[in-house]
């Protein structure tokens, strides 16, 4: 069957060939070239550069702020997704469309706007600074910028999953005497947890590489509020190409591990769904709709 369809539809060789050539030239060869360049240094030296005081501090700021931003989004994103799916309110479609703003708004615009909002004389900064909360030009500013940039990930991964929860299951839980809170903890949350984790990981992965929005609000003080992408650029500007490459390769490796875990998570989620499938098929057959 498979062999036969190969012959029926045209263009397989051309399409796959073009895909592979284009992918290789634009993505794989340049990335491979960078790894080759880094190998001039040797493994030990790459590690030495990555573990230098300034690089290590930058990694700590980058990953720490990204983790916090992803966690903030996991918490509020769950609430936002829930509210958008389950509760009616005026202007819902507008709010739903607005969630994608961070994907559409150029990062530099986000950066200067957030820096202006949270500066000492800004709309929000003027109320926060008397309370002793300084956002602009501190690591907290990095967290806020990354929270903005990665806001859609958790919401958008959760929405379809919450839509798919069958209310029958919730009704069953309720009729068996579960309180609403128990239903949430024991029925709803386990169903949406893989998607929540996927959204968190996607947000985290995106935040780690982010540059444009962060540099305006971070203050960019070495050892305190300097992120790794910025350190790569300052090394480049000082003609330390090898140092920049070493850091870039370490970042690439870490991002790749993140991408891999996202894929594993999605595979896990899909498999959970697959395990549910026989039941759904059975239910559909029972109700007289052929699958």
């Amino acid at each position, binding site marked *: 069957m498979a062999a036969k369809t190969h012959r029926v539809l045209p263009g397989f060789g051309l399409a796959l060939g073009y895909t592979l050539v284009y992918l290789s030239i634009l*993505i794989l060869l340049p990335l491979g070239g960078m790894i080759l360049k880094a190998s001039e240094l040797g493994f030990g030296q790459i590690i030495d550069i990555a573990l230098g005081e300034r690089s290590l501090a930058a990694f700590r700021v980058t990953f720490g702020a990204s983790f916090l931003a992803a966690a903030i989004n996991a918490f509020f994103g769950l609430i936002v997704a829930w509210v958008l799916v389950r509760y009616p309110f005026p202007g819902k479609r507008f709010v739903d469309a607005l969630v994608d703003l961070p994907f559409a708004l*150029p990062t530099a615009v986000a950066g200067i706007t957030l820096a202006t909002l949270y500066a000492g004389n800004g709309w929000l900064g003027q109320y926060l600074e008397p309370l002793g909360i300084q956002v602009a030009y501190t690591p907290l500013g990095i967290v806020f910028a990354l929270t903005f940039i990665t806001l859609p990930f958790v919401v958008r991964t959760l929405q379809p999953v919450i839509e798919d929860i069958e209310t029958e299951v919730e009704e069953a839980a309720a009729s068996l005497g579960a309180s609403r809170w128990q239903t949430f903890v024991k029925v709803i949350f386990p169903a949406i947890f893989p998607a929540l984790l996927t959204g968190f990981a996607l947000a985290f992965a995106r935040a780690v590489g982010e*540059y444009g929005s962060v540099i305006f609000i971070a203050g960019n003080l070495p050892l305190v509020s300097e992120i790794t*992408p910025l350190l790569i650029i300052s090394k480049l500007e000082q003609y330390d190409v090898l140092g920049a*490459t070493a850091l*870039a390769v370490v970042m*690439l490796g870490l991002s790749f591990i993140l991408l891999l875990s996202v894929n594993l998570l999605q595979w896990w989620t899909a498999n959970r769904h697959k395990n549910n499938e026989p039941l759904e098929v059975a239910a559909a057959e029972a109700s007289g709709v052929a699958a």
Partner: protein
Amino acid sequence: MKSTRATQEPAWVRYGLLSVGLGFLFFFLGLPLVAVFVEALAQGVPIYIEALKEPETASAIGLTVGIALAVLPFNIAFGVAAAWAIAKFEFRGKSLLITLIDLPFAVSPVVAGLIFILLFGSQGTFGNWLSEHDIKIIFAVPGMILATLFITFPFIARELIPLMQAQGKDEEEAAVSLGASGFQMFWRVTLPNIKWGLLYGVILSNARAMGEFGAVSVVSGHIRGETNTLPLHVEILYNEYNAIGAFAAASILALLALVTLVAKTIVEWRMKKETDMLSAVLAPEKVGNT
């Protein structure tokens, strides 16, 4: 009545969650969006218009649009080809290929710029050869196009692959078995089926192409009037403490983002309508089968 109550939260929880969720969106999305326009118009409309008329801002707009137009045909060709191969055929290593297509999403924009400096920069692999032949890629427009191509690489393919997989290959097979050439099949069957998905991918990749900052910044060299895109120009003006100019330029990009969101919502709505129609057409058949 009771059963609906049992699957609903108490009113105070509902209103609590609504206020927390909407409050979060207000502070993190609504306020920044409003702030861009308020800051841009802080000193009145005439000064805003004046700031936009600056020749450097105008040339930055031109370059931004130019780069976005330049990458579009590449992204469409790759997206359609990759989706055709992946969605309509079975072959070994398919899931690896899908992962590799996603790879640019996992690469920091700064690293995306760096890899092209390593290849085409003055000390890069091809640096000597390029300078002998007087070809400039880095700190010039070709490098910025390359970096943008890298960043926007997955967008269209990612939209088309699931769409074409869901559509299956029956219609194309029917066309071919009725004697259509490959081109006729693509033009009359495939393209009409995927046009909204393709447009959706184009909208997303275009927004990213016009707004990209990190990758383009690394390879641009920041030459005013030459390699300055609108997002890079925003940075320059902002660092010169020209807040009005920076936010005026930013407001153009924010408008572009709003247009993107509206277009995206319309296309989503069209796609949903089409799938609903399709399932409405198919539903009687299903009932007939049982």
